[in-house]
């Protein structure tokens, strides 16, 4: 078999495997377009006979999705800003030095990364309620997410800073820059892409965050879309087309960002997690 033929065969098998793997996603999009009766048809139809586009508008209105997504955006942006402001400097210092203190710091950070949110929420909730933080529930969630996700961000961004040649910073210092000046004018611009990709990853995580929001935010008008989806799915629900329409509206922006920036996201992710 020639090389081109082999490549074509491999590509076809790969596409088939990707199609099987991504079938749940396809099923979400398709179910959202089905009518109430078609959804429960046996055998199930794999292509909607009469696509119901009005479902989206109906779900958007009836579930108040605008408000939910707005809250998700606030929480996600708040977390990303807090994490970036705090995490970039930390990652820079941990990348710049190699001594036993950096090892200890990294070890502690890696340890904090692994604490499951659903186990940490009990002390965080009780502590926040004692401090009166529950009166600002979205801020409380942002802080909790920041504490949870910052270690991951630091590990990723540290890998980016390690790729910035130290000679450039030293040259800037010799030319009369202060440390602050060298950091902001030389190092930060060079690490910009890596920081951006890590921030996007954090954004996607925070946009779908559930445990903290569900536990801390009681008022419906402040809840994010993940909690809204959870309350939409009662134990005996049969509105699956509406739920899938909700899910479609919720994830499509994330999927779009991911597909557009796929290459960078994947390489950013792999550079930090494992060398």
């Amino acid at each position: 078999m020639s090389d081109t033929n082999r490549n074509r065969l491999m590509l076809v098998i790969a596409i088939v495997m990707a199609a099987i793997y991504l079938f749940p996603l396809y099923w979400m999009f398709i179910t959202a377009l089905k009518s109430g009766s078609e959804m429960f048809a046996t055998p199930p139809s794999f292509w909607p006979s009469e696509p119901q586009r009005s479902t989206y508008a109906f779900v958007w209105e009836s579930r108040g999705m605008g408000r939910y997504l707005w809250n998700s955006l606030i929480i996600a942006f708040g977390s990303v800003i807090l994490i970036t402001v705090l995490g970039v400097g930390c990652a820079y210092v941990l990348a710049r030095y190699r001594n036993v203190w950096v090892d200890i710091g990294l070890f502690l950070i890696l340890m904090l990364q692994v604490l499951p949110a659903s186990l940490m929420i009990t002390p965080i909730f009780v502590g926040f309620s004692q401090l009166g933080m529950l009166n600002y529930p979205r801020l409380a969630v942002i802080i909790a997410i920041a504490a949870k996700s910052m270690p991951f961000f630091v590990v990723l961004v540290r890998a980016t800073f390690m790729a910035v040649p130290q000679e450039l910073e030293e040259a800037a210092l010799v030319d009369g820059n202060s440390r602050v000046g060298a950091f902001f004018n030389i190092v930060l611009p060079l690490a910009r892409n890596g920081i951006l990709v890590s921030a996007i990853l954090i954004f996607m995580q925070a946009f779908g965050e559930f445990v903290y929001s569900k536990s801390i935010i009681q008022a419906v008008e402040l809840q994010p879309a993940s909690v809204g989806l959870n309350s939409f799915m009662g134990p005996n629900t049969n509105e699956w087309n509406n739920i899938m329409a909700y899910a479609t509206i919720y994830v499509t922006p994330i999927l779009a960002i991911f597909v557009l920036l796929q290459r960078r996201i994947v390489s950013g992710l792999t550079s930090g997690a494992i060398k």
Partner: protein
Amino acid sequence: MKRLLSSIRDGNGFDIVLVAFPLGFLFLMAGLPLLYNILMSFQEVDMFSLGTFLRPFVGFKNYQDLFAQPETWPILGNTAIFVTGSIAGQFLIGFGLALFFWVNFPGASWLRGLFLVSWVMPGLVVGAIWNWILSGDFGVLNFMLRETGIISGNIFWRSDPNYSLYAVIIANIWLGTAFNMILLSVGLASIPGDLYEAAELDGANAWQRFWTITLPMMRSTIGAIVSLGLIFTLQQFDLFAAITSGGPNNSSNVTQYWAWDLSFRQYDFAKGATISVIMIVFVMFASVVYVRSTRHEVRG
């Protein structure tokens, strides 16, 4: 004062400031809750004493009560099944896919990256989709299994106590496979190609090359991925909330969901904290293994 300012602007003070704030924040928001958790597990906590730090100290009573409950051991068992099943499934499928995509062909890296959408989607959405796919009467999975003749009657994945845990495991395997595959691909790419050329010259077939080169060279990667898998599966909460809510009758309940359920559904914060402490010890153990297997990276 002036020296301090100039040190912050142009000396080691700059580094210390950059590190002090994030570490202080992490200590306040992750370290202190951890300690507070341990403290609460030795206290009597109810709705009335929620607002004070000085609650009655009860020693190991919470721990004793916890293990006296009939559901404790089954839930610990479920956790073990969930973790083993998820990791085994994610790892084996992920490794298979990584080996396949390792054969370089045009479009391989792009298609491989596409798998990762399962990982970037919100857990609640993944849970909702699988909840619908696994539905008993109208679920598409049951339809496919029936058509291929694997089962004759519908399996009620979510409401049958024999299957409910496996429903969540299936969803979790789907969720985590891509991440495993991407990390394993990185490990595979770092094996020097001349090792294989040498083995091929020596007459080793593909099977022998896999067992004598690929697996030994991947040892530290595999160790890191399995311990990462353990960490991630013990964090998995959203799928339980979206698919079974731990039911029916705790048959699909695992510790990380149970801890939350005790605290926020039954308002038994002391028990919730107690389970959290026990599980965090496990997770810490896994993370020590993880850090050890990536220590080349940590040391630089």
